[in-house]
């Protein structure tokens, strides 16, 4: 895979992040996450070729591009939540924050040079994705969106780790993916319970524990 393709993929990821922040429907959110997972697999293959790279990329693409969104999709259907993403302070604010995050990521990238040959946009793309995930967690009402945000964050972190794939034992990354699978599973169960107990998955109802 050529460097330009890689950098195109990074661009796509960055743009995806911004669209993610502006998405108003849950369905779109899930689709975008899935797309991001697939892109992640693509980048993994591009950055670390070889059999290990392929295995990891395959696992990433399957899990992040397929299974996780599917799990969340199922959860969303089962809890019967509305399609609307409920943001704090409007979607525009999220996009603005995302743009700010991109700026921050570029700024950090300029100061922290990767000690490895990697696509030039990898670092900003990864950091932007992490920040976008954080924004999804912080600036959304629904528990489900928070899980999506968490996954997005993890996507970013994985993106950051792609140049390292194959440097250390591959099974570690697989284990980490497995862990994430369990995490999404457990969170999904928790969302079921939240729905049953609160008649809603709006985390703003979580206000009884405070000082």
């Amino acid at each position, binding site marked *: 895979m050529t460097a330009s393709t890689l950098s195109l993929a990074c661009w796509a990821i960055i743009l995806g992040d911004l669209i993610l922040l502006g998405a108003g429907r849950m369905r779109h959110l899930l689709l975008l996450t899935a797309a991001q997972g697939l892109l992640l697999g693509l980048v993994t293959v591009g950055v670390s070729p070889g059999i290990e790279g392929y295995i990891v990329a395959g696992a990433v693409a399957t899990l992040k591009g397929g299974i996780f969104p599917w799990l969340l999709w199922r959860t969303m259907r089962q809890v019967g939540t509305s399609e609307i993403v409920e943001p704090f302070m409007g979607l525009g604010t999220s996009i603005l924050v995302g743009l700010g995050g991109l700026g921050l990521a570029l700024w950090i990238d300029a100061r922290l040079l990767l000690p490895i040959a990697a696509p030039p946009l990898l670092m900003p793309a990864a950091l932007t994705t992490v920040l976008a995930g*954080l924004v999804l967690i*912080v600036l959304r009402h629904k528990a489900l969106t928070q899980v999506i945000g968490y996954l997005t964050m993890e996507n970013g972190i994985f993106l950051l780790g792609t140049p390292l794939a194959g440097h250390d034992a591959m099974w570690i990354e697989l284990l980490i993916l497995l862990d994430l699978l369990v995490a999404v599973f457990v969170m999904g169960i928790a969302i079921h319970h939240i729905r049953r107990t609160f008649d809603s998955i709006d985390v*703003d109802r*979580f206000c009884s524990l405070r000082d």
Partner: protein
Amino acid sequence: MVWWVLGSLTAGAVVSAMAGRSRLGAILGPAVLVAACAVGLGLTLSNAPEGWTIPLPVGAGALRLDALTRWFLLPLFAGGAVVGCYGVGYLHHAVGHRHLGGHWGMVLLLFLGMSLVFLADDGFVFLLGWEMMSISPFFLVAWEDTEASVREAAWEYLVAAHLGGAALVVGFALAAVPGGWSFAAMRTALPGSPLATAALLLWMLGCGAKAGLLPAHVWLPEAHPAAPSHISALMSGLMVNTGIYGLLRGLELAGLPGAGAGAALLLIGLATALYGALQAMVQTNAKRILAFSTVENMGLIVLGIGTGLLGLAHGQEVTAWLGFLAALMHLFHHSLFKSLLFLGVGVVLETTGTVHLNELGGLAQRLPWTSRCMAVGVATGAGIPPFCGLIGEVLLFAALATGVGFPDATARALMAGGFVGLALVSGLILAGGVRLFGILMGGAPRSAKAQTAKEPSWSMRGPAAILAASCWLAAIAAPLVLGLALPAAGVLLGTAPDLTPVVRMVAQIAQVALVVTAVLVVLFLARRALPGHADARSFRTWDCGFAAPTPRMQYTAFGFAHPLWRAIGRITGSQVMVRLGHGYFPAHGEVVVSTADPIRGVWSRLFEAVRLGCDALKWFQHGRIQLYVCTLAAVLLGLLLWQLGW
């Protein structure tokens, strides 16, 4: 022998706590206490070997028995045995339905702690003993824990004890920095080091809180009255001594620092003494009066220490010796008479159910033994011959008087100020003592509670009588007592200069006491020979022509203090509010006296401010998960930006 004492106290505490509500629990503790105290007294007075070690996690765990320790152990064990006997009688009605075993277990723990404090030869053992001694009274004070005020007092005690202890912990941790935890190492490494000043300040804070020095005294007038009376006697008569001991030991370890510490201690002591005396003058709860009297006496003792240090700093050895001797002697006497007074008030509480002066009166008729013992206690406290209180006060006066001749003008002024202040304090003590005894014991009962007062069993009368007798004996045998105090002061001051004038002075004061006793005996015999002794007619008190006086018309506790309160006592924060009835036929009017301690008010405002501050910061745990995650990210980002200098 030391192991017998410590071991029996430890084992006794454990077994007694296990014995619980059974009869064994009621008797085992005091029995062990008396036995341990007897052995301890033997140890104190014998020529026991000087040092021992126990393995402990930190430090060497060393114990040592030097003259200073012996001096402090003496009242501890003597008082412990007496108070133990008293406690059996005081708590007899609780046998079977209260957890007496636990109570006595805590008393034993308290004694274990105090013994360890006195015996400690390294910082860790000292702290260990100190905290054991500090914590156990929390449970003892809260004996009547169904009353909210007692619970409050116990908690205040705990907080004060712990905060004071914390100051000591840091103090010793500082002192251990250069050489380690053992006292020997501190003695060599500490003097002259800049750490010594800091450590000493912390020691003064911690020990001052324990001894009830201004402004850390506020817990004492709450906790001592709330405790059962034998515990009050222990705390006020014996436990406060540990504060003084800690201070003295700290001074010794820091190499007896110079004029600054002396002046500070002198001023703190004087302020404490004056404040305590004034408060004792205006309070109306007998146990609070005694507690403030403890504050005042601790002030006097610290005044002595400060004087001694000043003397040392200016090269006046005699003044130094007089100051420290005065402190040591007065401490011993205070242990005797304050325990005695608390035991006496305990009898009053036991038989009448109250210690509020305005509800009492007429007890001298009803409690002849107790009232006589109390009279001795009051007279001793006021330094009236022929009782021992005089000796410490004269020594203190002497120390200050010699200081008026110092070459250094500041020191002279301090000494003269101390002298005059001390004179004022001694006048106030007499007035306060008369007030306490006169209102409590004299006149007619002011309420039905006092009407039916009866003398308690001998187990309560006996200990008081023993202490009263000791108050007299300690005066008559003052030269002997001084003989024990001299080596104790020597631990601090080294070899003594020529002290024969001091020794002779004390001997002569003892003679004065003896002669006063003789004169009184002669007068007593002479009175029997004169008419009107046995055949006195009885007629009601002179009532100025008003035919229907009631006991309520007697002078009240605050009324008695009113002239002094008006003259110099407003600093106590007491207030008199007169509420008159209104209208043409005003029906009901009242006078309300509040005796709140203003310094306590300052502390409670401080605590309140901390609480409010904390409450104001509690929004941080606001409950919104999104913001929590936001904080997490912000902290990370902030640390990155700050630390990597981007």
